[in-house]
C-alpha cells in the first residue's frame, strides 16, 4: 500500500533523486542552484526548451539529464 505523499523520486543524471514539495522542473533547477544560461535539460530522452521549465511537472520515475559545458577539444 502506497502512502499519499508529495515526494517523488526521479533519475537525475543516472542517480536517484528525491524531490519533496514543488515538482516543477524549474523548482528543481533552482534548488540545485543552477543557472539557466549554463545548462540544458533532457526529460525522458527529449530536450526540454527553457521556456517550458516552469510548466513541466516531474513525475515519479522520470529520467532527467542536466548537462553543462566542460573543458574539451
Amino acid at each position, binding site marked *: 500500500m502506497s502512502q499519499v505523499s508529495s515526494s517523488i523520486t526521479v533519475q537525475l543524471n543516472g542517480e536517484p533523486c528525491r524531490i519533496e514539495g514543488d515538482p516543477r522542473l524549474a523548482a528543481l533547477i533552482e534548488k540545485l542552484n543552477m543557472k539557466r544560461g549554463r545548462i540544458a535539460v533532457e526529460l525522458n530522452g527529449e530536450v526540454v526548451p527553457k521556456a517550458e521549465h516552469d510548466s513541466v511537472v516531474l513525475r515519479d520515475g522520470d529520467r532527467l539529464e542536466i548537462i553543462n559545458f566542460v*573543458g574539451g*577539444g
Partner: protein
Amino acid sequence: MQDTPFRIGERSFKSRLIVGTGKYRDFAETRRAVEESGAEIVTVAVRRVNITDRGKENLLDFLDPAKFQILPNTAGCYTAEEAIRTCRLAREVGVGAMVKLEIIGDQKTLFPDVPATIEAAKILVKEGFTVLPYVTDDPIACKRLEEIGCAAVMPLAAPIGSGLGIRNPYNIRIIVEQAKVPVIVDAGVGTASDAAVAMELGCDGVLMNSAIAGAKDPIAMARAMRLAIEAGRLAYLAGRIERKLYASASSPLTGLIG
C-alpha cells in the same frame, strides 16, 4: 596584404585559430591561454552537471559567450544517435547552433567513424545546426560532408593528442583545392611549425587543444600558435617560391672584384 574574412556559416572571424578548453589546470589558466591565442572560437565538451558538487565553477563564467563563439563538441560519442542527442542538448544551453561533430570509431586511434558522421551530419544540417565535422584526411569524405551542407570540413592532421603534425600534406592540399567551404585542420598539431604548415597548405584555419594545454608553458605556446597561424596564412597569401633541386644565387653574378 589584404586577407578575406574567415567565414563559417553566417559568422566572420578575424582569428583563424580555434582552441579547445580541455586538459588545463583550471578555468583561470584556460581563459589566459584562450586570450593569449587570440582565438574567437573555443570548443567545449557536453557533460552531465556535477550534482554533488554544486558550488563548482562553470566554464562559461570564464569564457563569456557574448565574447567567444562557443563550439560544443560531441567528443566521446560513438554513434550518430549519441552525437545528435548531444548537439540538441548543447544548442539548448543557448550559445548558438554551431557544433563540432565528432563521432569516434575506435578507442585507441580516436579516428572518426566517417559513415556515422555523414549520417549524423545530414540530420543535424536539416535541424538547422551549423555543422563542423571532424573527419579523416580523406578528400572524398570531405566532399560528401560538404555536399550534405556542412559549414566547414575538419580533417585530422594526425591522431587526436598525438602531436605528430601533418601526416599527409598532399591529401590536405587536395581537400583544400576542391573545397568550397572552409577547411580546418583538426587534431594532430604538436608545435607552432605544424600550425604554420597547415596554413601554408591553404587551410582556412586550425583547431587545436593538446598542443597548447599540454605544453610546459601553455600561455607561451598559445601565443606561439597565434603567431604561427598568422605567419602561415601570410606566407600562403604571399605565395612561396618553387622548390628547386639546385642553387640559385641571390647575389649578382656580375661585377665581382677581380
